[in-house]
């Protein structure tokens, strides 16, 4: 007897379903792998472009082509880890990009030895990032400081020289105000204390220009020269680490200029007298933290004066 109410489940169906499941599974797996590969590829491309973009920022050649913004194809998270312990130190940068489907974050990391001194918060997130490149002298040019941030900053009572410098350096994402009430609520308020009587309540970052101190999230750091901007926009730990790395570079350059001084002294009787002073400078430039910067800067200014008297300048 044939049961007419039963469903006919022939071999055809079983075969089709099994093969269908296998094909669909393989298709999903292939698509998933392909998407992952594509994302890694795009992230690697972004990292390469970022590296290429950051490298020229270090040179003096592109002083007129410094970008004030970096715009990524999609939202990214940049994280950095600074290591000062080995030699000249290094910075590791991790770039994560947000997936449009599901909102997952992928990441690609690279070591930043070339564009070496990147000052930023430990994590900076956004599709657009502001960049500021400021040369650092002590007394010769040591490096260009690359400063990155994504949120807006409101600088309250900034001195005129700071306003002028930031304008020359083509800084974006920075608003100047004479009162913190004029700052927008979503901006980080940076208050400049230009005299001991200035009040700094309600400010996330406090800059004391007469003591050359910057207090941010309870941590106090010291600055000299263009390090002021680095200390405002950067995480205190990354700042201190990079300051140590800059000191190592300053020391190495002091040794190099000392050798150049000896070379010029031998060949053209010019500049040789500065060699022992530079050797001495190389010995004292090693610093424990940014607190020691003012002492180094005093020595640096002395050397600057002495080199100005030379017929052939060791640096300009």
């Amino acid at each position, binding site marked *: 007897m044939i049961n007419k109410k039963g469903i006919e489940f*022939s*071999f*055809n169906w079983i*075969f*089709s379903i099994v*093969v269908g499941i296998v*094909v669909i599974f393989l298709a999903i797996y*292939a698509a998933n792998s392909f998407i992952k590969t594509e994302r890694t*590829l795009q992230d690697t*491309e972004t990292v*390469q*472009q970022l*590296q*290429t973009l950051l*490298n*020229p920022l*270090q*040179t*003096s*050649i*592109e*002083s007129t082509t410094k970008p004030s913004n970096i715009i990524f194809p999609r939202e990214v998270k940049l994280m950095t880890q600074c290591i000062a312990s080995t*030699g*000249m130190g290094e910075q590791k940068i991790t770039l994560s990009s947000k997936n449009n489907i599901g909102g997952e974050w992928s990441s690609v990391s690279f070591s930043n*030895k*070339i564009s*070496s001194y990147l000052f930023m918060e430990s994590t900076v997130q956004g599709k657009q990032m502001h960049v500021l490149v400021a040369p650092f002298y002590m007394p*010769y*040019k*040591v*490096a260009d400081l690359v400063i990155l941030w994504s949120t807006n900053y409101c600088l309250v009572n900034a001195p005129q020289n700071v306003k002028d410098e930031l304008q020359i350096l083509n800084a974006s994402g920075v608003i100047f105000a004479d009162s913190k009430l004029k700052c927008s609520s979503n901006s980080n308020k940076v208050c400049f204390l230009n005299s001991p009587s200035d009040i700094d309540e309600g400010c996330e970052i406090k800059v004391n220009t007469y003591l050359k101190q910057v207090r941010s999230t309870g941590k106090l750091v010291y600055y000299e020269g263009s390090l002021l901007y680095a200390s405002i926009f950067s995480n205190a730990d990354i700042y201190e680490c990079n300051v140590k790395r800059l000191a190592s*570079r300053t020391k*190495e*350059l002091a*040794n*190099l200029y000392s*050798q*150049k001084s*000896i*070379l*010029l002294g031998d*060949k*053209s*009787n*010019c500049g040789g007298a500065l060699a022992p002073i530079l050797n001495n400078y190389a010995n004292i430039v090693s610093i424990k933290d940014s607190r020691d910067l003012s002492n180094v800067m005093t020595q640096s200014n002395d050397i600057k004066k002495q080199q100005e008297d030379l*017929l*052939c300048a060791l*640096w*300009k």
Partner: protein
Amino acid sequence: MRSMEVKGQLKIQEMAFVLVAIVIFLGLVALIFFSIRLNNIKNEAATLKEEQAAALVRHISGLPELSWDCPGCIDLDKAIALKNSKDISLNNFLELDYLMIEILYPLQKKGNCVIGNYPDCSQILLINDTKDFGVASSAFVTLCRWQSDKQQEVCALGKVYAAGKGVSR
């Protein structure tokens, strides 16, 4: 009954062939797609590598360890001091296997520069870690130094050659 069984078997075979054909077709499409994509990736990688190499060579001329005070200029006095130094290594911040500066014009005596023959020489070899560095990327630069007999700065046309991990990275 017998004809139904044969018909059923034929259907199964037909479906199996169709499925095999679809899989082969999809495989071929995927193969073509991936070969085109791979080719694009290779082109993109080559372009990025070139950009990186050009940026690096420009970057080298801007390093405080080598730079003169004009854009794209290298201080030859610093370069020879750097070559002579045992304490300072450019590889602290450049991952290079090879770095050489060549003076092109005005013509100089051929030969590697050392303290003894400087500046009457044409090449300053700063890094030479391996013989297998491949093809070095190069860029034209201005080479400047202090000329002791005339007590003035002089500049020449030169080229920087660089190769290594830092370039191909």
